[in-house]
């Protein structure tokens, strides 16, 4: 047996350990960390004393690649792969940023298609989030029910652009394919099929006594801490902050639809606990269905390819545009030097800031709670590491 020096054991950041404390690694390969995330946890029995997240296991140098592309359009597949569970939202954010830099507008039909795709993608992403959250808590069945619904959405996407997960669908100035015939009817069928399913999820999981006991009053994130740490999306709204970029900093045509941002009110425990964040996602799915239905009814005809520029050569300048992706505020900061290839593309990922709040809210909880908290923040490591 190798000799261990029992005198000066510290964590990787140099924090010395007391006598009863143990350092355990959750990850990078772990069934519950939603990707390659390493949480270095200092445990005192079952109580978490400190959590130190280590990221970077999925860093793929997207920003450096983007600088070497010849064309702003070529960056779109890279952007897809940032948050692979909500790729349409990633596309949307990037193309809006480049379009603002160029100063172009897109046809009405393109706007409607983009909103429909983004909202369907939001539902699909929340289905993953809620399903895997149930799996973390130990409920095996809702995961499969939610994936069954997700299959229907992926069928719609496959019908349109041929891909199920990474689409390369939204291009600068338009979209890559027009809606195929039959899409609108199939999407309307999906909307009426999906609404009762949310009730099924609520019966099976959301209002289950054991689930409530595991998630209510756990990982409470106060509103001021959330704002200070730059949290966004359901994490911020779950803490009671009424802020949704689609309404408060509007982009595209979201101001033409009637829908409500959902916020957590502490119904089952404290405002800002895991149950609130989870329930915000479930309720947002219902709101997204509202938006999709309204958009399907209002969508005009037109040519979707007319505004795609032949050459993208923006004037020198910079722009920061943010959109509400499924996980929060997705921002793209693009610097152009006047040539055809981007000078600097920075993706501000929502999960990066959401993840940084974990040490703050999980001190003093138990190991099982730590898993519940990490699941409720809904992180996708592709986005955190880029």
């Amino acid at each position: 047996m190798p000799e261990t020096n029992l005198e000066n054991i510290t964590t990787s950041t140099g924090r010395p350990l007391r006598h009863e404390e143990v350092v355990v690694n959750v990850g990078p390969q772990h069934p519950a960390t939603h990707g390659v995330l390493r949480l270095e946890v200092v445990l005192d029995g079952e109580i978490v004393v400190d959590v130190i997240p280590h990221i970077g296991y999925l860093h793929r140098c997207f920003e450096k690649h983007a600088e070497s592309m010849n064309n702003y359009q070529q960056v779109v597949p890279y952007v897809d792969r940032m948050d692979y569970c909500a790729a349409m939202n990633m596309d949307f954010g990037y193309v809006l940023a480049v379009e603002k830099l160029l100063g172009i507008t897109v046809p009405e039909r393109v706007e409607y298609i983009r909103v429909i795709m983004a909202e369907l993608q939001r539902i699909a992403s929340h289905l993953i989030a809620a399903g895997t959250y149930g799996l973390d808590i130990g409920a095996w069945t809702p995961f499969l029910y939610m994936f069954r619904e997700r299959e229907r959405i992926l069928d719609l996407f496959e019908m349109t652009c041929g891909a199920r997960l990474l689409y390369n669908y939204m291009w600068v100035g338009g979209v890559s394919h027009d809606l195929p015939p039959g899409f609108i009817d199939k999407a309307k069928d999906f909307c009426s099929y999906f609404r009762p399913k949310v009730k099924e999820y609520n019966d099976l999981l959301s209002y289950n006594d054991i689930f409530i006991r595991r998630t209510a009053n756990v990982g409470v994130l106060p509103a001021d801490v959330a704002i200070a740490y730059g949290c966004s999306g359901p994490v911020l709204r779950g803490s009671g902050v009424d802020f949704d970029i689609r309404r408060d900093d509007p982009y595209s045509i979201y101001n033409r639809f009637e829908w409500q941002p959902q916020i957590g009110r502490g119904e089952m425990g404290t405002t800002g606990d895991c149950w609130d964040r989870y329930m915000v996602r479930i309720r947002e799915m219902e709101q997204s269905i509202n938006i999709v239905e309204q958009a399907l009814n209002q969508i005009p005809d037109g040519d979707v390819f007319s505004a795609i520029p032949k050459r993208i050569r923006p004037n020198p300048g910079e722009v920061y545009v943010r959109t509400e992706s499924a996980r929060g505020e997705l921002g793209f900061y693009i610097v152009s030097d006047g040539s055809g290839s981007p000078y600097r593309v920075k993706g501000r990922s929502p999960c990066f800031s959401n993840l940084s709040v974990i040490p703050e809210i999980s001190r003093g909880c138990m190991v099982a709670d730590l898993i519940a908290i990490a699941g409720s923040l809904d992180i996708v490591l592709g986005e955190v590491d880029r």
Partner: protein
Amino acid sequence: MTFQEISDKLKENFKDSILEVKIVSPADSSVKVTSNNWRDIARFLRDDPSLKFDYLMCLSGVDYGKGVLGTVYNIYSMTHKHRVNIKIEVNSDNPEIPTVSDIWPTANWHEREVYDMFGIKFIGHPDLRRILMPDDWEGHPLRKDYQVAEFYRGIKVQY
């Protein structure tokens, strides 16, 4: 408040630190400040009642070439719903910028990323280590003059 009003307010309080105010459209306008007074400016931006910039949206590093590095702060106010972009430029030989991670805690990880990718040191940061690259990586990848090391711990990097 419009960008013009915000930049005017900054100029009247920090005359010496404001280097340049660039107003463009449709791209973003920005204010360039010096780095030595940055913490006071940041605290003023966050605490002044008419500005109340409490939400740091994004903190990016940029390599402007010719030995100049910079950081860009995109800040938003939840109460007044206005935004501002602040830029700081430093020399790439000894890049140092005061940290704002105690003013906006979200900057903690973002500054670590800028340090990792560009090598800009943030004075006063509680835990400045690499965040995306491995801890013992050499070089700062997003600089324009970055050369990939040939071997990392005995593994050939470019294959």
